[in-house]
């Protein structure tokens, strides 16, 4: 074999029995190969996980306007926003507040029973007063209230990203109800 036909010593795959793979060159290629493989695999899983987080949601917004305060009559429960926004709008003698429709027992959706003047959960029978306070069944605590306030145009604005728990004394917070 002439000198100029000899393959480069570090090259893999061009070796002949007369030209064994050099140990150092082999490890260099092996490391490069594994690094490339690791990078490709890492990129692959990054892409897949990113793909699972949509850019656009087809859900009702977390913050929404429900109308002007005088549209809500005293001592009544407004169920118009239950299906779309999962919130009841309740007006008592002095305030308007937004109650979460999620039962505090296991997360079902109770119904407002007008004749019995209470929220009643069909799953396990939890009952709540018009204020949201639990009084029967397995529910361990009252319904939660959402942040409520007035927007610039005078309409009531409900913000579901912030909720207030009675048992933590948060119903005293002035964002948890709207004085009327």
């Amino acid at each position: 074999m002439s000198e100029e036909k000899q393959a480069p010593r570090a090259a893999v795959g061009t070796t002949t029995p007369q030209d064994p793979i050099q140990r150092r060159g082999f490890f260099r290629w092996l490391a490069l190969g594994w690094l490339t493989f690791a990078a490709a695999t890492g990129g692959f899983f990054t892409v897949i996980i990113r793909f699972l987080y949509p850019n656009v949601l087809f859900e009702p917004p977390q913050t929404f306007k429900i109308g002007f305060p005088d549209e809500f009559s005293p001592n009544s429960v407004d169920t118009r926003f239950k299906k779309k926004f999962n919130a009841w709008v309740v007006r008592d003698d002095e305030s308007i507040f937004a109650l979460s429709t999620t039962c505090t027992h296991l997360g079902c959706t109770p119904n407002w029973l007008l004749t019995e003047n209470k929220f009643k959960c069909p799953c396990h029978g939890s009952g709540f007063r018009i204020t949201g306070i639990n009084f029967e069944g397995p529910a361990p605590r009252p319904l939660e209230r959402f942040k409520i306030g007035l927007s610039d145009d005078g309409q009531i604005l409900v913000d579901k990203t912030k909720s207030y728990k009675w048992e933590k004394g948060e119903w005293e917070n002035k964002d948890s109800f709207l004085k009327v």
Partner: protein
Amino acid sequence: MERSDNKKSLLERMGESQVWKSIIRSGVPRTRRQRMHAILGSVFLHLHPARLPKHAVKVGYTWCMGGLSFFLFVNLTITGILLMFYYRPTVEYAFTDIIDLAEQVPLGIMRELHRWAAHAMVLIVWLHMVRVFMTGSYKPPREFNWGVGVLLMTLTLLLSFTGYLLPWDQLAIWAVTVGSNMARATPFLGHEGPGAALLAIGDINLIHVGSDVRFALLGGRFVGEATLLRFYVLHCIGIPFIAMIFMAVHFWRIRKDGGISGPL
């Protein structure tokens, strides 16, 4: 001579651990026989030959077309599953979901990857067939595997055809309308095919536009909502399932029939 436990290297201890043995089914392979057993004992590795002849890795001979076909199939499976998270096969949503896949779903290239991989797979499966033909690899004892290969190619074309409808645009609907019209001419089973008129009881035709093989394919008399759902199920589950069974046989027979490429 046996060494005491504390002299053993980490690799040796790992090879003798229960976790390793339960997964690999043998200890650290040291002899050629043990190495072969390590390959044969793994469901994934055993699909591949335990030893390769040197000529098998010559790209100039095989063009690597079979491997590339399988690579594209795996690619299409992964991108296809991801697309299924966002695509709904209904008349109301199908077209707009395809638009959304390009415009607002993260990495809008995912559908393009699927589309181009599909085109490439059809091309490469054909080239694979050309290579096998040109090298005479269809000859006995490989003639059975050639037959399996022809079925796999047909399944590739059917996957391409069923996927064609899913964007639910004008091109898709009319292409599938035209394509499925061929089924009208199926002998005996298509209502315009030869012999269909023979299948009658008295004056009553058994094979008509509402009862022939095209009707079964479309789930109706024309390409509609039922067709979209039917092609979606065939595209995502039905045909890939059958193709995977035939691929397992195909790969296994390559080895049993004397290995990849080269004379026998």
